[in-house]
């Protein structure tokens, strides 16, 4: 690999200068922008998780081997694979090109990314259900939809809720990154701060992101423990 070790050695003093630029973090002078960015990230996260989960559920049902016939199964699995292969940032680049800068592109990106993640894990959970209960419901002469509602849904419900909360947490984290390529949210604010060499503001934004992510992770851990 090509590593310019002289440049790396130069990193010490550069890091010192860089980090002295970070301190003290400046929360005040751009607080309005930081706050607006955070709110935008939050809206994107909540809306994208809700939409993503809503779209994922039929795809997950179709992608479960024990529920869906083979053609439907392969079609749904293909949707999941496409959505999971590309990194959120690459997807964001495309949606920014299609829909223009701003939170709408971010919303679509996160929804798309949620689809692959949530549908795949939920489908795996549906495949792992207890078949005895499913057969018992079938034996009562229930229709297909009734069978889904009474045999499958109660068994996957705890995991479905846990996954949704987990994805909410991931989406917030990702919303901090996709802004760098123009998809709105706190990432856009962070990128602006870097481009203006306002490292003290960037430090403040990073600290805020870390705090929120830690808090979100803690809360989502609690919720997941409770439902599972």
């Amino acid at each position, binding site marked *: *690999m*090509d*590593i*310019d070790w002289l*440049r*790396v050695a*130069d*990193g010490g003093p*550069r*890091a010192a200068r*860089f980090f002295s630029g970070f301190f003290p973090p400046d929360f005040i002078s751009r607080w309005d922008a930081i706050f607006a960015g955070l*709110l*935008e990230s*939050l*809206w*994107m996260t*909540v*809306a994208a998780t*809700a*939409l993503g989960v809503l779209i994922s559920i039929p795809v997950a049902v179709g992608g479960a081997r024990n529920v869906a016939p083979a053609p439907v199964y392969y079609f749904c699995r293909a949707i999941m694979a496409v959505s999971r*292969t*590309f*990194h959120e*940032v*690459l997807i964001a*680049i*495309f949606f920014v*090109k*299609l*829909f*223009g800068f*701003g*939170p*709408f592109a971010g*919303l679509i990106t996160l929804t798309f990314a949620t689809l692959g993640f949530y549908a795949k894990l939920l489908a795996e959970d549906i495949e792992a259900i207890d078949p005895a209960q499913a057969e018992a419901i079938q034996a009562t002469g229930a229709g297909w939809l009734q069978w889904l509602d009474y045999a499958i849904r109660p068994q996957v419900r705890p995991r479905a809720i846990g996954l949704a909360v987990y994805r909410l947490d991931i989406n917030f*984290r*990702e919303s*901090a*990154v996709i802004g*760098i*390529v123009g998809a*709105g949210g706190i990432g856009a604010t*962070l990128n602006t701060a*870097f481009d203006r060499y306002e490292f003290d503001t960037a430090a403040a934004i*990073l600290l805020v*992101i*870390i705090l929120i*992510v*830690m808090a979100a*992770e803690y809360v989502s851990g609690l919720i997941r423990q409770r439902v599972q």
Partner: protein
Amino acid sequence: MADTHQTIPQWKLRTRKQDLVVWASWLAGVMAVILCLSLISEKTIWVFVLSAPQEAADLGSRMVPPDWPYILQLGRPLWDTLNIATIGTAAALLISVPVAFCAARNTTPSRAVVRPIALFIIAASRSINSLIWALLLVVIVGPGVFAGVLAIAFRSIGFCGKLLYEAIEEIDVEPVEAVQSTGASGAQVLTYGVVPQVMPAFAGISVFRWDINIRESTILGLVGAGGIGLQLNASINNLDWSRVAVILLVILATVIVSEWLSAKIRAALT
């Protein structure tokens, strides 16, 4: 006599109060989502959104046919990307092992001091995305592969550390006690009592993270941290979409191969 069947209480899943709570929380949730959507739509320039079909057609026409000869120039960047992911994962594993042992309740040298520090390292590393790490590291160590390796490593320490310390906390205490009862020292207890039990988890975690890191390292170039992302960024900035198409196909193939490989290895491990 005719109204006996009306007095039989009908079985219900929930009481009326529970019904109301469920209904109210659905209402609150739906309203929150609608509120979020309306706030987003306020910030959206709908003219640009509505032109999406034309944009998509335009993009499609520029991406097809892909600039196939360009693939010959992608060997080196792809090799760099694989190196960033692999070396970054290896470095992260090296650091995450001691951190995990310090963070696990049953092996930490001190619960009051060392454990919180280790947990903080794990949480801090996990909350910053590798792209943001790369953004910082490019300024410090300069653009290039090294910044990418460090960015991947810093992000992975938390991930591997967390999964590993959870695996350590879940071990069976009996073998540990058996080794202890032979009069083994602390280090010997670790080597013979704990390490063999977490080895399979460790191997699984490293392959799993390597697979994720391949995906992550494809984008680090966007901020200058080496790999195929550099070419991608250059092509996007030049609006050279036929090259972008080739790069995306190469990334797609790489990710699919690495995911297949990782699934095979993990299946063989369990």
